[in-house]
């Protein structure tokens, strides 16, 4: 993409939005640093440069997404949910909905959930931290992959729910019960991180695309209200990563156990 295709005012607008997003945080941090802790900040110069990097990086990232990925994603969501595409004819055959006919939507939902989550800046931040803290036991890519898989599954199931029109809270409650049961079997060290990964997945990248998909589905399927049924995909996207991250930890834990056991028998 060339610079010319982006008007300066657009970039400036995004930049201002990002700064407005960061400003309260900066106020709280510096206010406390100077009035409560009463200490000068170490490496203040480096931290300020870092903040500028964060703001500009995020603004670049968002403008780039808006220019390239969002229109494409929204267009695809619209086209895939179009009755013409699904039935090959005009929309008057939509008396009955068979959920199987929407398989392209599910594939798209899976792909978009996975792809947007891999690119999510907040998730990258948490993965770096988790990798640091665990001393490398949790790999950055392993965690990102597990979370992205969870979001993919979540969005797919969420689309299925919109197509069939079943109430949201049944799924959510069932998911919660599953998470609770899984918590008892998961390694203790992963639990907090797994809970966190539910929240971090859904920010800058995922929300606009997923919302477009949900609204598109709810508008084209008769009997669905975009206001009631279009929401709720994000809820799925925050629920399933918890399950996959705990699952990821359980599998790697189990494999490590098995390995050490077999080493023991071979060595002994």
């Amino acid at each position, binding site marked *: 993409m060339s610079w010319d295709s982006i008007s300066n005012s657009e970039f400036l607008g995004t930049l201002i939005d990002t700064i407005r997003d960061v400003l309260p945080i900066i106020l709280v941090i510096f206010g406390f640093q100077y009035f409560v802790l009463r200490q000068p900040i170490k490496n203040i110069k480096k931290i300020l440069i870092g903040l500028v990097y964060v703001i500009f990086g995020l603004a670049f990232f968002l403008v780039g997404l808006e220019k390239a990925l969002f229109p494409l994603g929204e267009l695809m969501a619209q086209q895939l949910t179009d009755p013409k595409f699904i039935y090959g004819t005009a929309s008057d055959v939509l008396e009955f909905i068979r959920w199987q006919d929407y398989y392209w939507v599910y594939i798209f939902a899976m792909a978009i959930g996975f792809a947007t989550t891999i690119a999510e800046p907040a998730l990258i931040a948490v993965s770096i931290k988790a990798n640091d803290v665990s001393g490398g036991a949790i790999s950055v890519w392993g965690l990102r992959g597990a979370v992205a898989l969870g979001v993919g599954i979540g969005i797919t199931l969420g689309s299925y729910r919109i197509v069939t029109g079943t109430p949201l809270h049944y799924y959510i409650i069932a998911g919660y019960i599953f998470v609770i049961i899984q918590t008892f079997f998961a390694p203790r060290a992963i639990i907090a991180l797994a809970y966190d990964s539910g929240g971090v997945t859904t920010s800058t990248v995922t929300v606009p695309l997923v919302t477009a998909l949900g609204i598109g589905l709810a508008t084209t399927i008769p009997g669905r209200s975009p206001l009631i049924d279009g929401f709720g995909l*994000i809820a799925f996207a925050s629920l399933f990563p918890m399950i996959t991250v705990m699952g990821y930890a359980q599998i790697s834990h189990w494999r490590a156990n098995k390995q050490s056991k077999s080493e023991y028998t071979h060595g002994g």
Partner: protein
Amino acid sequence: MVILGLALFIKGLEMGLFPIGESMAYAFARKGSLFWLLIFAFLLGFGTTIAEPALIAVADKAATLAAQAGAIADTDESRSNYAYWLRITVALSVGSAILLGVLRIIRGWPIQWFIIGGYILIVIITGFAPKEIIGIAFDSGGVTTSTITVPLVTALGVGLASSIKGRNPMIDGFGLIAFASLTPIMFVMIYGMIVV
């Protein structure tokens, strides 16, 4: 451009946001003032949420829904009023979530009891909440945590857990985000019940 932005963001993260979150956590631990730490935690959660663009969008949609359902008068004034208080509600809930989460790290309470308790409460409230608000409530749990809040809050939690004796940063340091995504669901549904 997307890649350039992401690279800059990560670089800035490691230079700016991670160190400041951790150094503040250490400074608070040294100062030993629980009161100020909790105030800080609350303000951080409240301040970052109230300005969140995603939340503003969700609140406006919720107001339109409520007006359609006949819960509030269908005028611009009552709608913007509804959206404004909804934002305050969510910001309050995130503020108290970070506060509670920090308190948990300091005391070393196991996280699962809070989360499971929170889920059970949510399930119970879902049974009583008006149908229109449920989807929005669950979504608002996800949108409140922005890209800038997450790294900072994570660094704060991990910094606190590593500066307090007997806390394991892996077990105790994470979990602040989980609290911040849980409480808005509850608060928004309660808000929907009270206003309707």
